[in-house]
């Protein structure tokens, strides 16, 4: 379970995240949406202990990340949006290393690594240096590393960036399966189809504040729109209807 209580982050005078409060129940996939620069990544970085909140609390499985960081981090599996990893390790060595950081012995790691590499289609690449991996392969490897210690909470920033359609489908299936097994999954994404397809609940953040939160059905009611697509909902709720006008103007210009 994830609980954010009045979470706030200020950079000087600029408020990046403003009193965000959320609760994500176990067995749920929670979608965190918002336009660029809305505060999604800052929120996530505070949730995993990479940033210190200016005020507010992050509670992961009952542990406050500020007061019990080690205990809270033990149950988190984190996938950042940009997968910077050790280029000079092989995929298998990297997973063994991360497993070690979570206190797993080599023997415990070995079997788990084999399964994860198979699930994410990296079996043939385990012995290769990461520097020779494509962006999508790195992303899949980081997903493996986030799951190696069997976390109860999974926090993902942009889960399908750089993944091909097959990889994206795989990730969606894995997340659904994890949620079925009672894991709490928090996903920040720009890809609305992903949110629409896998998320049980969604929150939209704009200018650092959560403007709406609920199931897609609830959001439709709030937006008061007949358009069933999440894109229409998103644009309406983030007040970006004018984007449509811009697109229309652009199309007109091209036709002239």
């Amino acid at each position, binding site marked *: 379970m994830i609980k954010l209580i009045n979470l706030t982050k200020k950079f000087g005078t600029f408020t990046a995240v403003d009193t965000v409060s959320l609760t994500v129940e176990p067995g749920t996939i929670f979608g965190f949406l918002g336009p660029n620069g809305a505060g999604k990544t800052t929120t996530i*970085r505070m949730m*995993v*202990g*990479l*940033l*210190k909140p200016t005020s507010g609390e992050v509670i992961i499985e009952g542990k406050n990340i500020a007061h019990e*960081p*080690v*205990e809270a*981090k*033990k149950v*988190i599996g*984190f996938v*950042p949006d*940009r997968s*910077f*990893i*050790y280029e*000079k*390790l*092989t995929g298998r*060595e990297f997973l*063994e*290393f*991360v*497993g*070690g*950081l*979570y*206190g*797993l*012995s*080599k023997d415990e790691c070995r079997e788990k690594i084999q399964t994860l590499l198979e699930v994410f289609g990296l079996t043939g690449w385990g*012995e*290769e*240096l990461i*520097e*020779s991996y494509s962006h999508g392969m790195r992303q899949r490897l980081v997903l493996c*590393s986030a799951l190696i210690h069997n976390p109860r909470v999974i926090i993902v920033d942009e889960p399908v960036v750089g993944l091909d359609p097959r990889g994206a489908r795989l990730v969606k299936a894995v997340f659904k399966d994890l949620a079925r097994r009672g894991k709490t999954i928090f996903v920040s994404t720009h890809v609305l189809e992903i949110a629409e397809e896998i998320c049980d609940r969604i929150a939209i953040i704009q200018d650092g504040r959560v403007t709406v939160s609920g199931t897609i059905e609830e959001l439709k009611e709030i937006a008061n729109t007949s358009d069933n697509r999440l894109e229409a909902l998103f644009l309406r709720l983030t007040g970006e209807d004018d984007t449509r006008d811009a697109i229309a103007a652009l199309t007109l210009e091209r036709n002239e």
Partner: protein
Amino acid sequence: MNSLPDLLHPRWQCLKHRIKDVRAREMLKPIILACLALGFWSGTFIVFYRVLAYFQGIESLGDFLAAKLLSMILLVFFSILLFSTIIACLSIYYLSDDLQLLFSLPVSLSDVYVAKLLETTVTSSWMVLLFGTPIFLAFGVVYHAPLMFYGYWVIVFVPLIITTSTLGVMFTMTLVTVFPARRTRDIMVLLSILFTVVLYILFRLLKPESLVDPESFSSMIDYFTTLRTVSSPFLPSVWASECLLPWLQPSYRGNSGFFLLMLWSTSLALLVIGDWTSSRLYYNGWSKSQEAKRTRLTRRKTFTYALELFTKPLSPAIRMLIEKDVKVFLRDTTQWSQLLLLFGLIIVYVYNFTVLPLDRSPLPTFYLQNLFSFLNLGLAGFVLSALAVRFVFPAVSLEGRAFWIIRTSPFPLRAFMWSKFCLYVFPLIVLAVILTVVTNWLLEATTFMMMLSVITILIMTVGITSLGVGMGAMYPRFRHDNTAEISAGFGGLVYMICAMALIGVSIILEARPVYIFFLSYLKKAPLSGWFYGELSAALLLLVGINIASVVLPIRYGLRNLISMENHE
């Protein structure tokens, strides 16, 4: 279409923004750096001024010595410029991030070549120019050179720099063509070996030992002839010295204009040849460097087994961290070449002790042997801190943008810091002890000095290592393109100053007991109880200072890492 100004514009803009950024944020760092640079600058000027003034005082021989010194300096500059061009060229022409964009733009290859040549030239030569200026100023001031000399110096240096740049670029382009597709490892290793060999050959060519030993020549005329001969008439650095000397010594019979023409014509010809070479080699080489999807990895099972055995008693997390660091270190070729060079320097350092002419000195051999043995502590400490600034100081920064893995894991940062310390302290201790024992053995130092040196260096190494890990965490640089820039930054400089201070204090602490020991030995008087008291107090203080150097930097480094926010 001439896109050269457009290609150079972003670099210029970036530089402007960086300066603006420094001005806006903190003024302390640039002020300290400027003071240090000014200190170094003035120091260099004073040293050269005094040496040249001394030379000038030696009748007839002085001018020859000054001329030889100038040609030596220019030769060293030439080789440093050439090597730094090769290294800079490799990253600017082949590994730089902007290349993907540049090659996708409608820009001619020739424009890219020239733009990158300018970048390479500036990158590789600004430091040499900055620190070389006081030397040439000293020459000008001592020899009362006319004002024109300083302008002439610029006219001489520009073609010299163009020559080294174009030569370096052409050499690298040929090398990248021979070693295809990301085989930078081979290139780097080859380059370092080459550099060591070239350095050695150049050094031997100069025969520096002959200058201080006129007796080895059959006659004074031979000695003068050696000094007077142009060492290698095909070296551009020699042309540069031939250009400058007539301005300094009017009695010098040379053809300044001819050598200036040689410099300019060669540099301009090399520019054209370089352009031609790049039109044939550059694109192919760059394209090849994008290929090779898989990297062949040679692995030695015995090595992995030994590493696992060594780390077995540790907790899984620390064990994995150490294993990871060792593997990454061994697979990073830039580390290898640096290691190789430092290894070469250590060999030269030890070799120097074998050729010290102690028996020819008017001072008692015993006194000199033990004095050198004591001063050697400082030298060994310097060698160790040079190693530490290159390998220990960057230890935390080397986690790079992957540091988020450590930060988001339940592995405590304190354990992370100590595991870095443990990883480096043992190899450094082994090296320090070997260095001290071997040099003391070569000096035939007394058992007392041998024991004292080993104990002191042991304690100092622990302090130097911890200072490196801690200050590396206080001044981390997670966003870096190559390892060398971590230690070359502001933090590395501050670390070197602190390490030097630590070594200095440690030596000063022991100076008095050692002096008393010498005196009693020379006077053949027994050592008093007072001596042992002073020695014990000095050693206790030494331990105390080094414990502080272990605890405090780690604590402050840790505090900084915890408070850091933008480290991804």
